[in-house]
């Protein structure tokens, strides 16, 4: 092999003049192809780049006399192999330069851009957590993001973790089987429910088959979601009874390690639970509460009703166990109230060791005592679940895996004492059913005001969206034996007759799905009238049997066909019968119940007005407590 212009070769400049035609013949189509792919405005740059690259290729071949390249064994007699070798070397040189040019063209501008500021915008990891876990997970999210930034040489923040609340246990199955409500919450990459039972409910996979071994489970019903359980956020924490020292002493339980539900019955005036409609620990608490009386006989049902009536429903029922303990603290200020909470032990330990409920220093005498319920004690076990929805965000997925590992290593401190029993999915289902059955069966027909003024703004959205939220939340409270239906009034943009949207039927899964589907279609109220009295009269006369009509309205009767007095008279007649339904009007404005509704309430025993100044849950609590 020789270097430099070999003997007999023209000078470089003359050589270039010789090859300009084939050079252009390759550079022009190559640069045109690149410009077509990456932008016509870059054609001059691509052309110059291709010419330069080809000159470089040629220069390499010009400087190295390739004719001199031949392996010793093919020096004599095997000239064909030498030709192939030389051609291969030439083609490889050209290809190598093309690869370098292409890679440089796509990578360098981006590196230059990042170099200006130094960091790329961070990847995103959305994390969904049950109310029981959300505060602890949120705290770890910040620590994890800082940790990842500390690993980077430039301390670039490579990831942003966003934590949000999971849907209630009763909606998990629907959420993961195709009806993910994106208007409520993003698609999570990591999910930290309260229990593995929730994962089983969401996927339909039996609990025993949920192994933390990296196996992906595909969700049912055509949803693109795949799930994988991957360790736990801390060790299981049993649910325990928590009470102030005063209450423990008054119940004669000082020093007792456990207590039976029966011994609390009749003595305990209030039982504080995280909201059972929204939390697994609340539902687990209900199931544990009823666990000694699951029978269908009259005595068992009566006992369940007694136990159910202990559950505190006033003052807003929180989702978070920590806030439940603040509610307990609030109740305890009344020296005559006997109140106990049923929450995860870790929540009590955090309360006793921290600054709960806005208190800067918690005196020792205000620490809560804990008791185990004798019999079955459920535990929350906080599995970590990876979720994937398709797509190619490999970097985000990698950080999601990383955050899962982080959570597994940085869980809450282990709770003291026995771990408690694994909560099964059937416990959650049965808890919900038992809670519904502990009260009298209810039969509700929702009448939704669809007049245009329902599009008016109020706290939290519009009156219509608030009404839809109330109905949607109410659906989580129904159980076996209940019935539900849905109407709108008026039935169309004009006219006055109400329209049935979903016929009155048992409040089972398919019925609640039908109502939810219909609610999804109701986007903007379009009617020019509000025939409130006429709608109630019409629906009251439509069905039979003991029913309750729940009317969601912004409260002013505006009937195109009749004057207020005559329509009111017909309303009174319709409700003036022993078999007439009860009517609850939820007035969805800041002003609450209008004067005419207040007047009707004063004179009609079956007519009630609930003012709209509360949250959806508070309104439902008020409503269901009256039913």
């Amino acid at each position: 092999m020789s270097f430099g212009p070999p003997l007999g070769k023209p000078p470089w400049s003359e050589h270039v003049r010789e090859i300009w035609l084939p050079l252009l013949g390759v550079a022009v189509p190559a640069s045109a192809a690149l410009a077509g792919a990456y932008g016509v405005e870059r054609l001059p740059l691509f052309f110059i780049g291709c010419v330069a690259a080809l000159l470089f290729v040629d220069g390499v071949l010009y400087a190295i006399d390739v004719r001199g390249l031949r392996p010793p064994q093919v020096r004599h007699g095997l000239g064909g192999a030498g030709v192939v070798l030389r051609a291969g070397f030439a083609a490889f040189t050209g290809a190598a330069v093309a690869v370098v040019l292409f890679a440089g063209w796509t990578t360098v501008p981006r590196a230059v851009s990042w170099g200006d500021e130094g960091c790329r915008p961070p990847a995103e990891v959305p994390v969904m957590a049950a109310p029981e876990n959300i505060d602890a997970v949120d705290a770890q999210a910040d620590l994890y993001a800082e940790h990842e930034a500390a690993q980077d040489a430039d301390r670039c923040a490579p990831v942003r973790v966003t934590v949000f609340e999971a849907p209630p246990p009763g909606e998990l199955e629907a959420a993961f089987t195709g009806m993910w409500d994106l208007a409520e919450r993003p698609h999570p990459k990591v999910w930290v429910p309260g229990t593995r039972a929730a994962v089983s409910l969401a996927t339909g996979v039996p609990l025993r088959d949920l192994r933390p071994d990296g196996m992906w489970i595909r969700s049912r019903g055509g949803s693109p979601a795949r799930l994988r359980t991957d360790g736990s956020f801390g060790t299981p924490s049993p649910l325990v009874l928590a009470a102030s020292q005063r209450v423990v002493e008054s119940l004669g339980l000082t020093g007792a390690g456990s207590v039976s539900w029966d011994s609390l019955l009749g003595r305990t005036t209030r039982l504080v639970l995280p909201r059972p409609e929204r939390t697994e620990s609340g539902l687990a608490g209900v199931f544990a509460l009823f666990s000694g009386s699951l029978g269908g006989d009259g005595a068992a049902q009566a006992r369940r009703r007694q136990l159910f009536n202990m559950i505190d429903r006033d003052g807003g029922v929180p989702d978070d166990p920590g806030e439940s303990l603040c509610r307990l603290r609030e109740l305890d200020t009344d020296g005559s109230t006997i109140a106990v909470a049923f929450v995860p032990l870790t929540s009590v330990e955090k309360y006793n060791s921290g600054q709960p409920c806005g208190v800067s220093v918690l005196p020792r005498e205000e620490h809560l005592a804990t008791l185990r319920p004798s019999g079955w004690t459920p535990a929350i076990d906080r599995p970590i679940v990876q979720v994937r929805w398709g797509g190619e965000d490999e970097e985000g997925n990698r950080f999601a895996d990383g955050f899962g590992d982080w959570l597994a290593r940085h869980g809450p401190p282990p709770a003291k004492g026995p771990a408690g029993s694994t909560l099964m999915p059937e416990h959650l289902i049965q808890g919900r059913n038992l809670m519904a059955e502990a009260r009298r069966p209810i039969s509700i027909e929702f009448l939704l005001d669809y007049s245009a003024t329902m599009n008016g703004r109020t706290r939290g959205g519009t009156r219509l969206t608030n009404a839809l939220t109330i109905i949607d939340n109410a659906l989580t409270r129904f159980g076996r034996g209940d019935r539900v239906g849905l109407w709108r009034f008026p039935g169309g943009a004009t006219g006055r007759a109400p329209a049935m949207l979903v016929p009155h039927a048992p409040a089972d899964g398919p019925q609640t799905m039908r109502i939810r589907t219909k609610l999804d279609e109701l986007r903007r109220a379009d009617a020019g009238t509000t025939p409130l009295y006429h709608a109630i009269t019409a629906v009251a006369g439509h069905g039979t049997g003991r029913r309750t009509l729940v009317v969601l309205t912004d409260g002013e009767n505006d009937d195109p066909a009749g004057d207020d007095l005559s329509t009111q008279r017909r309303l009174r007649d319709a409700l003036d019968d022993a078999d007439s339904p009860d009517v609850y009007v939820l007035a969805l404005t800041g002003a609450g119940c209008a004067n005419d509704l207040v007047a009707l309430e004063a004179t009609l025993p079956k007519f009630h007005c609930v003012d709209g100044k509360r949250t959806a849950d508070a309104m439902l609590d008020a409503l269901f407590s009256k039913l």
Partner: protein
Amino acid sequence: MSNRLRLVAFLGFAITLLAMTVYGEATSAPSRCRTEGPLTVLGGRDDTGTRRALVQGWQPKDGTRAEFRELPSNSDLEHSELVSTARSATCAAEVFLIDTPWIPEFAEAGYIDPVGIPEGDLKAIIPEVLKTGRFRGKLWAVPLNTDAPLLIYRKDLVGKAPGTPEELMAAARALTARPKSPVTSGLMLQLHDYEGFTVNILELIRDLGGDITVSDDGTVTMDRGAVLATLRQLTAAMRGDRPPVSPASLDADENAGIDAFEQGKVAFLRDWPAFYTQLLTDGAKLGPDQIDAVPYPGERVLGGQSLAIAAPLPDDRARAARELITYLTDAPQQKRMFACGGLVPVRGDAYEPDAAACGGTHRKRLVLHADPGKIRDAVRGARARPSSAYYPEFSRVLRRHLHEYLRERLRCTAPSACPKAPDDNTFLNRLAAALDRAARGRAG
């Protein structure tokens, strides 16, 4: 050197280059994205349903249709899903509706392409508002709706509406100094630890002639004097029995402000027009004869959302997306958005909404917006927030530092009671360094 060998080398070069280009194109997102079906606009929830109705009402002659897919109304969750969708490369949406401060991040990360609509076609959009869609010299998004704050006040308690920040503070002081003042504080701001804090504090800093800006290369320029003066004045204004600025502002968002105003705790409230409309129409304690609103005196920060084209899209889809954006920002649609949704128009010629478009009932007109003239005056002269590809982190760092400063100073009645609080110079140095890191996407 044989010409054949040279030709082989050139061919090797050309074939490899073309093969890599074709491969790149074949596997790139535009070729994988759908070329048929309705366009999807992905954005935060609009409770009035107006945006959805307008998007779905678009009917170009070629038969293309569009749908609006709603995201949570909480802006952190909305941002999370938008970024996840963009990064997943599933082409789940062609148009993103994004908060204007997010535009630099989406542009820098390659989630959106330049919008490709000549700015000459967008002349009707208010220039300050259109400017919010620009980043590094290119137009990345077209504003769909904007926002600017009002000063809502008790006209039964206050003689004349304040026209400057000084008049506002003087009026607040005078009101609370009255022997039997009906209010416990003069003014409520939104200073809870969320984006509202950043907006409110920027307005106060700018009122003092200062600013905090971020240049295209991520350099933060902070007027230390104005920032310190703002913090000191705010702290002083929140002290005392009946302070001119309610200390509850540190825990207040828009809803808490409305509550305090309705309950008669304050006489002045800084808030967005939608909340003023809610006060007027929700039938609560105060009647229209008791409340009024003017553009917030002094500096005002722009809010709003903009339409951006997801990257990368096949050419036909991108073209259709531009047509949709042009349609949504045309005058009739802007007027309808204002009338039926209370969404503040981005065009100066859309502030006379079609009052009959959304009607009401026979007895009651549906009112979804406050006086158009006042809102237009509030928008004019309002300015955008700092432009940064790391705006969410920048804002979080800014409010974390300033919020803590305010809480600490209010908790301590005298410097000797705050042994741990750093001196102001140290505080400003730490703040500047933290903002500088945040504006370059760095942690710590």
